[in-house]
């Protein structure tokens, strides 16, 4: 009997441990957000949406940064694995961006009196979601796998330009949206709020890693399925001749 390689054993252990870590972190973050973090003076308890909303936005930026790197790597090497990584990261990023776009209006309604305003941060975030939705949809325009990956990679690189725009939009255009992270100076989050915020970031990072571990092997399976379909079609053609 052959023993599995150390790398394979480590990957298997990580696959088992990661969902446990995500669950543990999620429970910990719930505690920090609802019991540990201080109640905000002006907004009250509704401000606790922040601990699910802002960390999702931050990790969504990271996911799109991974897509950006994978897109560059694909165009440079043409190795399908980079396309698989880019697609997996985009799906996870879109999920997180959807969380941001749905929880934001639910926070805005009691605080601003409206679900949505076309202010800079909200609009650029919606544009970001649309760009990466297009990254997934653009693949349907052609049947050639290399062309699909190339189109998507170009969009993955160009689309990333919107991420710094989203980040800096609150500083440059100064709309309703509050600044979340301050580069310098005081007046930021109170310490217990910082703990809950960091707990949220850790949970979403672990969730992102977990989703990548599920989605990347599935991308490989999709490649195998495509190859098998091509082979079956070639055999049918050969048989009919």
């Amino acid at each position, binding site marked *: 009997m052959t023993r599995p390689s150390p790398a394979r054993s480590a990957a298997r252990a990580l696959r088992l441990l990661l969902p446990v870590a995500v669950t543990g972190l999620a429970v910990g973050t719930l505690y920090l957000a609802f019991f540990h973090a201080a109640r905000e003076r002006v907004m009250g308890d*509704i401000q606790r949406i922040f601990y*699910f909303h802002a960390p999702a936005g931050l990790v969504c930026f990271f996911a799109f940064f991974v897509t950006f790197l994978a897109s560059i790597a694909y165009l440079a090497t043409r190795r399908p694995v980079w396309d698989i990584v880019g697609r997996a990261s985009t799906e996870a990023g879109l*999920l997180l961006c959807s969380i941001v776009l749905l929880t934001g209006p639910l926070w805005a309604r009691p605080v601003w009196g409206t679900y949505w305003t076309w202010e800079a941060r909200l609009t650029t975030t919606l544009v970001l979601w649309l760009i990466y939705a297009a990254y997934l949809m653009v693949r349907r325009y052609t049947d050639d796998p290399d062309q699909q990956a190339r189109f998507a990679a170009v969009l993955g690189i160009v689309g990333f330009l919107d991420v710094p725009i989203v980040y800096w939009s609150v500083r440059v255009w100064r709309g309703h949206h509050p600044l979340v992270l301050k580069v310098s100076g005081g007046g930021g989050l109170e310490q217990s709020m910082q703990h809950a915020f960091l707990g949220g970031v850790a949970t979403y990072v672990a969730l992102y890693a977990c989703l990548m571990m599920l989605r990347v092997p599935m991308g490989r399976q999709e490649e195998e399925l495509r190859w098998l379909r091509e082979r*079956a079609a070639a055999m049918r053609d050969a048989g009919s001749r």
Partner: protein
Amino acid sequence: MDEATKFWYLFIAYDIVWLLIGGYVVWLGVRQNRIQRQIERLRALLGEEEDDRAEGTAGRAS
């Protein structure tokens, strides 16, 4: 807006987070199962066709 109504917004936002994550994970699982089934079916089909070909070649040779 009173605190009870504000609490409902918080509750719905929190539920949406779990629904989205859970929905995506379930969708991944369903899709992976479907792909796996298709791979197995095609492997079996290709295996059978290759066996038929091998038999055909052997029959012609004899």
